[in-house]
């Protein structure tokens, strides 16, 4: 028996998702949504959905994200970004259990659109991203600035949408988009959720109620 659904929408256009100007000037953006049964009373990403996303993303490659977990367990001489008025710590991991913390970090709240996940190719080193680049990914123009991360080995960027109720995954190549969709579908079905790719109108309608 299904315990809910995870669904995707390719090439969305709506400004209500709060994912900046759509379509993006470079690459392709997909919306990823979820619905649990019964509907949870809490906001944010439900733990089973977060676990599914974590397994799917780490199967694609290395994930780098904002973290308040100090010291970073996967540090290995990789210095945190502490230039500027406030420290910004990045954690890079291929461990899905570690990655699941990204959806629960109150210092970088997913539910306030304060989190960003950088997807690098499998086996790649953590991207040498600069503080200014990183913080610009949290603003409305993120789809424009994200392209600059491509030379650093980043193949995709995931950000929370409005109120953290959905995610936007920006990929820079068709291969990365296909790999992401395949990984999401596989892990969604393994977690006993329904999977579908829907239109933007159907995507919005899934949340009603």
């Amino acid at each position, binding site marked *: 028996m299904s315990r809910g659904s995870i669904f995707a929408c390719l090439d969305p256009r709506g400004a*209500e*998702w*709060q994912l900046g100007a759509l379509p993006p000037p470079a690459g392709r953006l997909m919306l990823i949504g979820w619905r649990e049964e019964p509907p*949870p*009373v*809490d*906001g*944010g990403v439900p733990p089973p959905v977060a676990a599914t996303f974590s397994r799917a993303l780490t199967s694609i490659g290395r994930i780098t994200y*904002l973290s308040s977990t100090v010291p970073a367990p996967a540090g290995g001489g990789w210095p945190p970004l502490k230039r500027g008025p406030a420290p910004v710590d990045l954690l890079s991991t291929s461990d899905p259990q570690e990655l699941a913390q990204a959806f*629960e970090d*109150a*210092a*970088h*709240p997913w*539910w*306030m*659109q*304060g989190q960003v996940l950088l997807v690098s190719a499998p086996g790649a080193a953590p991207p040498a991203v600069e503080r200014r680049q990183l913080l610009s990914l*949290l*603003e409305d123009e993120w789809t424009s600035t994200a392209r600059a991360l491509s030379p650093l080995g980043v193949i995709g960027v995931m950000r929370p949408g*409005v*109120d953290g*109720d*959905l995610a936007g995954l920006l990929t820079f190549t068709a291969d990365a988009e296909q790999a992401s969709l395949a990984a999401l579908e596989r892990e969604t079905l393994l977690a006993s959720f329904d999977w579908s790719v829907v239109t933007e109108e159907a995507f*919005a309608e899934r*949340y*009603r*109620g």
Partner: protein
Amino acid sequence: MGGSRTPTHAGATQGHEPIDSGTSALMATPAPAGPRVPLAAGSTIDIPMSGGIPYAVGQASVVRIPIPGTSGLAIEFSPRGWTPKSGSTSTLFFQDVAGNRHLRLDYGYNVRTRTIDYHWNQKRTFSEFGIADHAPAGTAGRAAYQAARYFKYAGRVLIVAGVIIDAVSIVQASKPLRRASQVVAGWAAAWAGCKLVGAGGAALATPTTPLGMAAVGVGGCIIGGIAGYAGGSLLAGEVYDWAEGTFFTPLPEAAAP
């Protein structure tokens, strides 16, 4: 010998009344004070200034007002954690110190109603408030959202005004050190009073009405802050005067037996 006297009190019209025959004077003495006359334009008056009220009112916009019995939730007007450059779309928060547990009054697109509305967002506070994520906040929520939005900024302006007034009062005081003691003690006591009375107010309100809880909590914070500032200043002044007028004389040394 009889005579007359001139009764004088502030604001009264001078007049004469007969003095009984048993009253006599050895020498003429002037009346203790003449009638009060209005100040001429441009003249100054030495009124002691205090930034207590603007400071105490304003601090309610920045102090975490505890909500007893909620395992660390407090009323605030700013979010915890990262916020965008443009600011948060929420204006009223009931949250723990990390922001992990929160109920916030938000304005924007609501995925449940598919409209832009005033609604609640929450995480792990359902047992305290009984409000689910994305529940519409209604017209009361709209009014509270706007009030909180303006109070957040007006409160900061009031704090700055209160601090400036207090700083000027220190500079102008005949005893600057005494006045400085009063100001610092007033601020500290205002903070404590805000926390104490604000928490009491929040506890009085029904937990299922967060807007009422915020109103009573913030009101209590303001009242406690004003009372705390006044009490702290008064106490500091008394302590200063006592210390200033107290002299300690060392006892003479005596040879050991």
